């Protein structure tokens, strides 16, 4: 099957005819028809899920709806910011997914009718489904930090969706004079990639140390604690002494607003004018999740921890960054783990079986320097309606180990990226 900008007329007629036949026939005939699963979002969650569904049951009609022809991965995009990697190395296409039997529709999904079980597309056509998977990732909130809207983001990049924004931040760092101040503003929990802002601080510091050693990097944080904290703080001391400063919430680190005209970040304790300002704003589930009625008042999606079915929208499953998965952090590894569990659960539900309680794993690497890797891992299982840590498992890399241990974890980080992108897109 190929990638189409829109569903071909023939496919669309076939879908229409099938739907009409389904309506006219008694139930047993319906049970024999190939079930239709639509997946919205072609990132680590959605692309993995579409592919896994087709692999589990080749008879399923699986459609992946994604508005972009090329996926730009966030993991390792901090290396692009620091000039250590090209953006092309972050980019993947959907040809192999289409070749595996998934119908790839390159369009934006604009509507979901949970009662009629249809997805509306930007060109006005609609796709019927028996089960829908939403893996829309995040939307950045431009309504929380005063003055930080999309226009401000063109001056003070978030670079929290990989692509143009990543390259903009890199260009600003390259254009900055030695001795400049770089500010990274980190949001409160929950958000995509909890250790991401601190890895970014490390790799920007690596760039500054190499190219602009009189510069400083300030992290303004809306939190008092963060992922892999001791490991990052040790790395700052060890690798970038005197260069990186972290200002916690209780020290006045929370950014309330910005003045994009002067590149100023505003906190309760004072203003910071930066040469380069990287503002990572609060986030919520991608917009289609709200349209589908799958978000709650937090802006994220509550799910059943066995099937990933939405707690508010039946027959709609939510995976990846958009869902509230208890203790599971919002990472690419998590999205991929959830995608496979969700695919098996959907295959079971469609054949009338009840899915078994799963266990899921997350492993997440960060680089403090190109040859200095640290990791966090966790094992999760359903408990009291959420995904909870399996006690005694998981945790972060040890604090006191020789540098070759860090070098090995940096190597594993690279290997992980090659493996997971090959599994999903290769």
């Amino acid at each position, binding site marked *: 099957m190929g990638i189409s900008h829109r569903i071909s007329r023939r496919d669309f007629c076939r879908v229409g005819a099938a739907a009409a036949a389904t309506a006219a026939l008694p139930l047993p005939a319906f049970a024999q028809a190939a079930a239709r699963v639509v997946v919205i979002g072609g990132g680590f969650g959605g692309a993995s899920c579409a592919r896994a569904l087709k692999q589990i049951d080749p008879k399923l009609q699986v459609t992946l709806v994604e508005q972009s022809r090329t996926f730009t991965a966030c993991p390792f995009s901090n290396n692009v910011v620091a000039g250590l990697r090209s953006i092309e190395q972050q980019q993947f296409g959907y040809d192999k997914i289409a070749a595996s039997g998934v119908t790839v529709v390159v369009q934006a999904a604009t509507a979901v009718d949970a009662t009629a079980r249809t997805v509306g597309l930007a060109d006005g056509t609609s796709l019927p489904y028996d089960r829908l998977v939403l893996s829309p990732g995040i939307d950045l909130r431009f309504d929380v930090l005063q003055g930080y809207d999309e226009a401000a983001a063109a001056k003070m990049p978030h670079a929290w969706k990989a692509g143009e924004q990543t390259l903009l931040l890199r260009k600003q760092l390259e254009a900055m004079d030695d001795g400049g101040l770089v500010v990274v503003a980190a949001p409160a929990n929950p958000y995509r990639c909890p250790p991401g802002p601190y890895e970014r601080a490390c790799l920007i510091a690596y760039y500054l140390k190499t190219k602009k050693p009189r510069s400083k990097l300030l992290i303004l944080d809306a939190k008092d604690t963060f992922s892999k904290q001791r490991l990052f703080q040790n790395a700052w001391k060890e690798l970038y002494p005197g260069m990186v400063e972290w200002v916690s919430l209780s020290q006045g680190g929370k950014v309330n607003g910005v003045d994009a005209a002067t590149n100023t970040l505003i906190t309760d304790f004072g203003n910071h004018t930066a040469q380069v300002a990287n503002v990572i704003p609060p986030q919520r589930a991608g917009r289609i999740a709200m349209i589908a009625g799958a978000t709650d008042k937090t802006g994220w999606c509550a799910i059943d921890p066995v099937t990933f079915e939405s707690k508010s929208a039946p027959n709609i499953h939510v995976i990846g960054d958009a869902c509230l998965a208890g203790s599971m952090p919002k990472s690419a590894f998590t999205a*991929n783990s959830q995608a496979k569990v969700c695919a098996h659960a959907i295959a079971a539900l469609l054949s009338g079986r009840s899915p078994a309680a799963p266990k899921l794993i997350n492993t997440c690497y960060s680089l403090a320097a190109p040859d200095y890797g640290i990791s966090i891992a966790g094992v999760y299982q359903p408990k009291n309606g959420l995904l909870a840590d399996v006690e005694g498992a998981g945790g972060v890399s040890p604090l006191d180990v020789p540098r070759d241990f860090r070098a090995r974890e940096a190597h594993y980080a690279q*290997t992980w990226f090659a493996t997971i992108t090959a599994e999903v897109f*290769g």
Partner: protein
Amino acid sequence: MKGLRIAIAAAAVAAWYQPLLAASDPPPGAASCSGCHSTGTTAFSISRLYGRDAEDITKAMAGFRDGSLPATVMNRIAKGFTDEESRAIAAWLAAQK
């Protein structure tokens, strides 16, 4: 004679069971392994687990769990699984191609 018959029967059961196991739902945790351990033919340095001997995988998991095998991250992950869960994961991985 009787021993041979049992052996043939056991082999027949195994031959019948392997494809069924391969196609069965992965036991809890097993679907996550391929996030790091390649299932493809590309030679990455993190070991491929599909088709590996089940006993080897079970032993490795036990070694990571009790600390007798050196590890960077597998020690932290293995502690999330019991011996029985590890055996089920190992059998399923071994049955995959």
